[in-house]
């Protein structure tokens, strides 16, 4: 599976210059498929569910009913 290293480098450098949603060191994934093709991005696949985070309290002394 020969990988086009020039395409890989270009994809990485393009990512380096993008602004992303994550404030800390964000980057999109660069994917090299079985045939050696270089692609950017691994967006959620059809049918794949994204995570939901509840706005619950994380508390060290919350008393619960036994």
């Amino acid at each position, binding site marked *: 599976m020969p990988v086009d290293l020039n395409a890989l480098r270009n994809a990485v450098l393009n990512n380096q210059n993008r602004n992303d949603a994550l404030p800390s060191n964000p980057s999109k994934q660069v*994917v090299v498929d079985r045939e050696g093709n270089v692609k950017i991005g691994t967006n959620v696949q059809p049918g794949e569910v994204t995570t939901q985070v509840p706005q619950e309290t994380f508390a060290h002394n919350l008393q619960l009913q036994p």
Partner: protein
Amino acid sequence: MIILDNVLTEIQSQIAMHQPERGGALYGPKFQRAVTHFEYDKEGETSAVSYVPSLRLIENVKTVENHIGLQFKGIIHSHPRGFDRPSAGDLMAVQSFFRLNPHLSSMALPIVQQIHVPTEQQGLGFIHWFNAVKTLKPAELNPLSNGLQTAQTNIQIIAEDLFVIPLFKDVNSLVRALTLKGVELKITPKVQHLQIENTHLLGLVASNDDHQEFMFFLSLDYPLTSPIVLYQDNNQTKQLSFPWTGFDDKEASLNRMVEALLPTFH
């Protein structure tokens, strides 16, 4: 759990060096037990005894999973000194998490303790790593609940070892060694994810205004397995060849990499 060294540094500076309770979200490659990104929740509702994730952070989790390609791994937050385990209150939050996400069966739930002096990245005493796992039958009493008699839950809290991948440390070390040899490069502090078939790689780019550069990618097995280093040769990207004996002597291997890289800059 595997964690990138810069994530640990960020957790230290954003959470551990401040009063509890503060928190944020953890992300990593899909289906891998690795944390490669941390998002501090600067808008989280905090008090001396509790942390509530902000709506902005909650919304951003979907954005990150949809557009960045990372997977949410869990919530990290700090407790007052001495409370170094998830509490009964934390378990309630985790229960809600599993109710909302029936497709998931675990989340990371590390607890941070306040420190006043930054420690070296190898010093992990300020962070206690736990994994909350959904179980089939209720746990009768959670022994990690700091003595609180909790309601029966379907959640097991499991303490985990933490393994740090020294990506920034080692690339910084390479750049310093190259500087001593007359090649000055600057690291772009943006971690690059690379997936080659089923192998996940993490990387950094070091470059300068004279178009000299190298790219350093490592796998989650690093330093047992060799990193992949790319360099430029007459506008062509090539892979650096060098002997790697990371199992035996990583520092010597990094020195050999510096020697192999030097001729590529001339």
